Structures are given as structure tokens and as C-alpha cells.
């Protein structure tokens, strides 16, 4: 395989190595992808007349971005934003507080097998379902409003934080744990003095990151009635008030940018 390539290179006709070494596998993959593309594209039906009709609306929407309307629905936007921000903060605090015990339980090196399996189960369920599906169930249970949204986001936060925390605990420096254990420390003292200092900087960084994600998600779960700016946005889009929706989208982008800027600062400061 490699011999002709080297001979070609000596003659000045060098070719680079392919990304996938095995030629048969390469062709098989290419053929598979091609077959899939044909099947997939064939199964999509597009109503081109409807698309052509909608194009003018698309242009309207783009034009609305040039002159967003912050004023005419101001009170709705402010209320929605306030609700989103409060939901974000409370859900992150509650979610992180609940994720810490689950994360400790899901780390194989410090917890017994039954607890490990239960905690991993919680993480898998919470991570698999999109926030919006969980929100539907919680809205049915708790009624419309920000409480359902808050519980949804807290639940989603548990899966995210606990998984990353557990992975972090699983690769921590075991010598420190042994040193603390050798002094006769109890389980609780070991966690507090050997595990916690090692994972704390990353935990803070991840919490900031999750705050950012929770804000973005809070803009969505309003669609199913769980409060926040999403409800306002949904209403404005279904009323074809694109200038208001453009304003809301711009506000969301600005807040996410701000969050990201702050969280990168906090992360640099803690690590």
C-alpha cells in the first residue's frame, strides 16, 4: 500500500495520505453516504409555491431587523425579560445545589454501585429529553407560569452539571484523597478536604456556563406556556409583528453576549 506512494513521491508526484486509511472502507462509506443522501432527499416534499409565497414575508422579517420596535410592546417585553432572568437565576441555583449530590453519587470512584446506577439513571433521563418536552409535563402538573419553567430548567441543570461534575471527580488526583484518608478522615471529611478543592474551580466555571444556557433555554420554554420571554416572542411571531420579534431577538443576543463575557471573566478568575 505504502510502497507505490513512496515511489510516486520520489518521482515528484507526491499525494497526501487520505483521511481514512483503508481504501475499501473509504469507498464503502462514500457509497453509503451517497445512498443515504438520495433516499433522504427523495423523502422530503417541499411545497415550492408556499415557499415562494413566504419569501416576501422573509424579506419583511429581514427589513424588521433594520428597524426593530422596542417601544410599542415595551411592558410585555420588560415583563417577559424579568420573568426569564428570575427563572434563569433561581433554576441555576436550585439545579446546581441538587446536582452536587447527584454528581457525587454518579462518580464511580467514591460511591457504591447501587447509588451510582440510580444517579446515572437520573442523569440519563434528564439529559435525553429536551427542556421543552420536560416543560410540557411540568406545565400540566404545576399550571402555566414561571414556576413550571423554573422547575424544568432546574431539572435540566441537574443532568448537565451532575454529568460533568461526576466526570471531573472521576479523573481527580487520587493521591490527595489517599493522603487525607491516611490521617483517619471520615467520608465526609475526605470529600470536603480532598475532593472539593480539586473540583471547585471547574464547578464554578460550569455553573456560570449553565446560567448562560438556562437563559437561552428560558427563551424557548415559553412557547409551551412555561413563562418568560419565549411567550412574548411566540405571540409576536404569530401576530406577524416582526419588528417586535426582531427587537426581542436582538435583546436575547445582547444578554447572551453579556453573559458569555462575564462568565469567561469569572472562569479566568477562578482557574
Amino acid at each position, binding site marked *: 500500500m505504502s510502497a507505490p506512494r513512496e515511489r510516486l513521491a520520489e518521482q515528484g508526484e507526491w499525494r497526501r495520505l487520505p483521511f481514512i486509511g483503508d481504501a475499501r472502507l473509504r469507498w464503502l462509506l462514500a457509497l453509503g453516504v451517497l445512498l443515504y443522501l438520495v433516499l*433522504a432527499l427523495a423523502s*422530503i416534499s417541499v411545497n415550492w409555491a*408556499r415557499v415562494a409565497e*413566504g419569501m416576501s414575508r422573509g424579506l419583511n422579517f429581514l427589513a424588521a431587523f433594520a428597524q426593530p420596535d422596542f417601544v410599542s410592546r415595551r411592558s410585555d417585553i420588560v415583563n417577559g425579560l424579568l420573568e426569564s432572568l428570575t427563572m434563569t437565576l433561581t433554576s441555576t441555583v436550585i439545579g446546581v445545589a441538587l446536582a452536587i449530590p447527584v454528581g457525587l453519587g454518579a462518580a464511580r470512584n467514591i460511591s457504591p454501585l447501587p447509588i451510582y446506577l440510580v444517579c446515572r439513571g437520573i442523569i440519563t433521563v434528564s439529559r435525553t429529553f*429536551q427542556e421543552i418536552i420536560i416543560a410540557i409535563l411540568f406545565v400540566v402538573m404545576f*399550571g402555566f407560569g414561571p414556576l413550571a419553567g423554573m422547575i424544568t430548567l432546574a431539572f435540566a441543570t441537574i443532568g448537565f452539571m451532575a454529568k460533568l461534575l461526576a466526570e471531573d471527580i472521576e479523573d481527580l488526583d487520587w493521591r490527595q484523597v489517599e493522603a487525607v484518608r491516611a490521617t483517619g478522615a471520615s467520608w465526609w471529611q475526605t470529600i470536603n478536604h480532598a475532593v472539593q478543592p480539586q473540583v471547585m474551580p471547574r464547578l464554578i466555571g460550569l455553573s456560570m456556563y449553565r446560567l448562560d444556557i438556562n437563559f437561552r433555554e428560558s427563551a424557548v420554554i415559553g412557547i409551551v406556556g412555561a413563562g418568560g420571554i419565549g411567550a412574548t416572542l411566540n405571540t409576536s411571531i404569530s401576530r406577524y409583528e416582526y419588528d417586535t420579534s426582531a427587537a426581542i431577538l436582538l435583546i*436575547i443576543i445582547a444578554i*447572551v453576549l453579556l453573559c458569555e463575557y462575564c462568565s469567561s471573566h469569572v472562569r479566568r478568575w477562578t482557574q
Partner: protein
Amino acid sequence: MPVSTNEQGQPIWRLRTSRAQWLGYIGWLAGASLFLLCWKLISDNTMWVFVQDAGRQGGDLISRMLPPQWSYAHRLWKPMWDTINIATLGTLLGIAMAFPVAFLAARNTTPHPLVRSIALVIIVASRSINSLIWAMLLVTILGPGVLAGIIAIALRSIGFIGKLLYEAIEEIHPTPVEAISATGASRMQVMNYAVLPQVMPAFAGISVYRWDINIRESTVLGLVGAGGIGLQLNSAINSLAWNQVSVIFLMIFVTVLVSEWVSVRVRRAII
């Protein structure tokens, strides 16, 4: 809190100065007050009567979901195929758009700082807006259907893939780049033979990771009319057929687990 004192009762060493300690206390107090304030806002907007019978509602919901109506499952294969198509084609389209954007956004490959800031704005705008919101907009423009879902997923993927890829490009070794440009290679040749081989594994890993996330997201796009299994979910919920909803949930659960397994395997094979 002095750790130990000398004979005169002067502290020898302490962890924090009293100023830092006070600042810490004030910080905790401010955080706790902010949390309570947010909590009050949420609690004011909640109908606590509904929350009181949440347990009963939840039990009722579960009793309606069980047993799942298995005969409904055979009607879900086509929507599931659509969902996977939305995720896969959306990811491919997103990759095609994110690839040039990432090269324009990386500090070491961008042609001009101005171009770089435009590319960064594209990445941030795409990242801050959830795919459901993109789908909501596109459904009003393109009409309901799979196409809106594909484009929504693609638009959301640009930011994610673009951001991770441009960070990978900025971290490449400069030596191969210098070596290739020393041979008199043009700008495109330097990209092709020095930059691309270095970021290719990262790029493939990021794409597969995003595909996995997109499978999750495409399961709910139907809630706003953008095709896939979400359409079935929406109609099942609206007709209160909870025993069909549980079949859909199980289907989503299995699909997401499989896609995550595939993505982990592929990424392990690449890296």
C-alpha cells in the same frame, strides 16, 4: 480567624484578611437576597392552588400514560425517519456554511480584522438563538414542513461548529504553516496542506458531536410545525392521548441513546 498565635497573642498566619472575609460575607448576603427576590417574583406569578394538587396531577398523568399504546408505534417510523433526516441534512448544511465562517473568524487565517468581526457576529447570533426559535421564524416564512426544520438546524449549527472549529484553527502549530509557505505556496495551498490536515480530526469530532445534539433538538422541532416526530407529539398532546405520548417518549429516548452511543464511538475512533 487566626490559625495560630505567637506569645503576644498576635496572629502569625491567617487564610484571609478581615477585609476579604467581610467582602465574602457581603457577597453571600447579596447573592442570597437576589435569589430570594427572584423567588418572590416567581411566587407572585404562580397560582399556588394549581401547585398544591401537582402531585395528584402528576399521578393522574402517569396513570394515563400507562400502559403505552404499542399499536401506535408503527405509525411513527416515517416521522422518525424525517427526524433523523432533519438532523443529518441540517448538520451537513450547517457544516458547509460553518466551514468558511470558521476560517474567516480564526485570527491566523482571516484575511482582514473587519472580516473577522463580521464572522464572529454571525457565530454569536447563530449561537444565541435556539433552533426552536429559528424553526418558528422559518415556519412562518417557508411554511410548515421538513425543509424549515433542516434550515433551522443548519442555522443553529453554524455557531456551534464555527466557534469550536475556529478555536481549533487558532491552536494549530505554526511550524507546518511556515514550512509550507517557505516553499512558495499560495494562500489557498497553505490552507490546504498546512492548516486543514491539522484541524481535520477536530472538525470531524465536532461535526459528529453536533449531529448527536441535533438529533435531540430535531425531536422537538415539530412542536412549532417544522416536521419530524414532534408533529406527532404535538397532536398526541393536543388530543390528550397520553398513552400515545408515552410511546413517542420511549422512541425519542431510544433514538437519542443510540445516537449518543454512535457519536461517542466515532469520536473515540477519530481522536
